[in-house]
C-alpha cells in the first residue's frame, strides 16, 4: 500500500519530472487572456420548489467588484414569495436574494436575473509595480482558517515542503501552485464542484475532487505560509474564445457550470488570478480527454493560469461558512441556489428534489 507520506513524496518527484512549459505549441488560438474590451452578460436563475411545506430560498447574486475584471450590475426578480430581500453576508459581503413563501403556497417559484460585465485579466509577473498594501482587516480575513480550510498542522507542513527553498511570496505561491497541479487530480465522479475539506484530503491522501476541493486546497496551502488568498465561487457564462472546450460554458444553459477560482495577494501586484483546478480540468476533460501533462493545451493552461484567466466566468462571492439568513442552516460556500422546505435544506445537487435552471446570455446591444 502507498501511504499518504509516500504519495506526497511521489508527488514531489512528479513535480520535478514535469517538462518545462513551452512557449510555442500547436493550438488554434494561443491561450493568452489579456485585459481588453468589457463583455456584458445576464445570468437568469429560476427555482421551482416543492409545495410540501413552508419554503424559503437563497440565490447568490454577483457581489465581487474588481475594476480590473468584474463589474456587477442590477438584479431583477419575479416571484410569488411573500418576502423578498437582498441579504448580505456580514463577514465577506456575499449578497443573495432571500425569498420566503407563504405556508400553503402551491407553486413556490422565483426567477432572478443579474447583469454584470467581465473582461480577461492577466498580470505581468515580470513587472512588479507599486500598489497600496492590503488593509489589515482584509489581510487578516484572507489569512485565517475556515471551517474546512485549516492553515496549521498538515496543511502548513505540506505547504512548507512544497515551497521549500523559495524566498519570495511569488516564488512560494508558484511552487505551491505547481505542487497542486502535479499532485491533485480531477475526479469526474465528485458531486457538484466538491466540498473543499482540505484537512481530510491531505490526511487521507485522496487529493481528488473538483474546483471547490483543488482550489480550496491551493488557497489553504498559500494562506498557511502567510500569503493572503481567497476562493471566488462563481459560474462559467460563455465558451472559451481560446478553443478550450473544458474551460467554458457549453451552451446558454449553465445550470451545472458552477466553477470557483482562486486569487492570491502579492505585494507589488495586488490580487493575482490563479486556477490550478482548471489545469487539472484540461488534463481530464479537454478533448480527447485524459491528456498527458506535456500536451500543448495542458502546458499552456498550466503556464497561463498562474497570473491570468479568461473573462468568461462570473465570480459571485468569496464567502466561506455562510449562515443562511432566517434559517438554522449554514453552507460551506454559496455558489449554488439554496432552498429549505419545511425546515429541511434541499440537496442543491439533486435535480429530482430541487429543480432550478440557470441561463446565461451575452448582451451585445
Amino acid at each position, binding site marked *: *500500500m*502507498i*501511504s*499518504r507520506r*509516500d*504519495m506526497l513524496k*511521489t*508527488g514531489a518527484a*512528479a513535480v520535478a*519530472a*514535469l517538462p518545462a512549459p513551452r512557449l510555442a505549441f500547436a493550438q488554434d488560438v494561443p491561450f493568452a487572456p489579456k485585459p481588453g474590451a468589457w463583455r456584458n452578460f445576464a445570468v437568469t436563475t429560476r427555482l421551482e420548489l416543492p409545495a410540501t411545506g413552508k419554503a424559503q430560498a437563497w440565490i447568490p447574486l454577483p457581489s465581487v467588484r474588481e475594476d480590473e475584471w468584474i463589474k456587477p450590475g442590477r438584479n431583477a426578480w419575479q416571484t410569488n414569495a411573500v418576502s423578498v430581500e437582498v441579504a448580505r453576508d456580514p463577514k465577506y459581503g456575499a449578497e443573495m436574494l432571500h425569498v420566503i413563501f407563504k405556508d400553503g403556497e402551491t407553486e413556490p417559484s422565483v426567477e432572478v436575473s443579474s447583469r454584470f460585465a467581465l473582461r480577461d485579466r492577466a498580470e505581468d509577473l515580470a513587472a512588479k509595480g507599486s500598489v497600496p498594501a492590503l488593509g489589515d482587516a482584509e489581510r487578516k480575513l484572507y489569512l485565517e482558517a475556515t*471551517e474546512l480550510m*485549516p492553515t496549521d*498542522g*498538515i496543511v502548513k507542513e505540506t505547504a512548507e515542503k512544497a515551497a521549500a527553498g523559495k524566498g519570495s511570496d511569488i516564488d512560494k505561491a508558484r511552487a505551491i501552485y505547481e505542487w497542486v497541479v*502535479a*499532485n491533485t*487530480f480531477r*475526479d469526474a465522479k*465528485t*458531486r457538484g464542484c*466538491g*466540498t473543499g*475539506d482540505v*484537512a*481530510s*484530503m*491531505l*490526511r*487521507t*491522501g*485522496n*487529493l*481528488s475532487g473538483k474546483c471547490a476541493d483543488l482550489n480550496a486546497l491551493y488557497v489553504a496551502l498559500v494562506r498557511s505560509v502567510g500569503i493572503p488568498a481567497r476562493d471566488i465561487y462563481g459560474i462559467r457564462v460563455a465558451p472559451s474564445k481560446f478553443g478550450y472546450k473544458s474551460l467554458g460554458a457549453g451552451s446558454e444553459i449553465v445550470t451545472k457550470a458552477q466553477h470557483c477560482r482562486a486569487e492570491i495577494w502579492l505585494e507589488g501586484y495586488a490580487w493575482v488570478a490563479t486556477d490550478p483546478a482548471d489545469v487539472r480540468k484540461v*488534463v481530464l476533460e479537454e478533448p480527447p480527454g*485524459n491528456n498527458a*501533462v506535456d500536451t500543448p493545451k495542458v502546458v499552456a493552461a498550466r503556464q497561463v493560469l498562474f497570473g491570468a484567466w479568461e473573462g468568461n466566468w462570473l465570480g459571485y462571492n468569496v464567502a466561506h461558512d455562510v449562515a443562511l439568513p432566517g434559517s*438554522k*442552516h*449554514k453552507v*460551506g460556500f454559496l455558489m449554488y441556489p439554496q432552498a429549505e422546505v419545511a425546515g*429541511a*435544506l*434541499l*440537496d442543491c*445537487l*439533486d435535480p429530482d*428534489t*430541487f429543480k432550478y435552471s440557470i441561463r446565461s446570455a451575452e448582451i451585445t446591444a
Partner: protein
Amino acid sequence: MAPLLALALLCGAASARADSLKPWAGDWLPPLALDRLDGPPIGLDALRGRPVIVHFFATWCAPCIEEMASLNALAVTPAAPAILAVDVGEVEARLRNFFGDRPVSFPILLDRDRAAMKAWKVEGLPTSFVLDRELKPALRTEEPLDWTSPAVAAALATLPPQAASPIQPTREKGETPR
C-alpha cells in the same frame, strides 16, 4: 503520471491500515447529542455494556464510502460493537439518497454544524473512535479501515471486559460532573 498517481491515491485510500487503530487515552468523552436520520434519538448511555464505534464520515469522502460497507459488514457479525455513524455537515436529503442505495444497520447521526466534529477534535474524515464497554476511550484511527480484517478484530478483542462500576459518559471541559 496522472493515471498512475490516481491509482496510487485510490489504493492508498482503500487499503486497510489495521495498525492505525491506536490507543486513545482520556478520562471523559466529548458530548454526542445529535439528531438521528429518520429515527428516534440515541445516546451513548443506551449502548453501555458493548464496545461502541463512533465513526465520523461524509458521503463526498471517497474512502468513507468503502469504509461504510466494511462497518456494515462488521455490524452484522456476532458480538459486534455498537456503531454510531456521524455524518458531518451534509443535508438530510443527500443522506437519504446515499443510504437508500447503500442501507446500513446502524444509526446515522447528524452533525449539521460540525460541533460534534470539533468537540471530538476530528481533523479530517474519516475518523473513528472506539469506546470500551464502560464507554471509556479506548482506540482511535484517522485512517480508513477494513473493519472486518483480522488485525482490526484482534485490536477490538483487546478491549477490557465490563467492569462492575461503570463511569458516566462525557461532559465538556469545565462542566460540572453529573
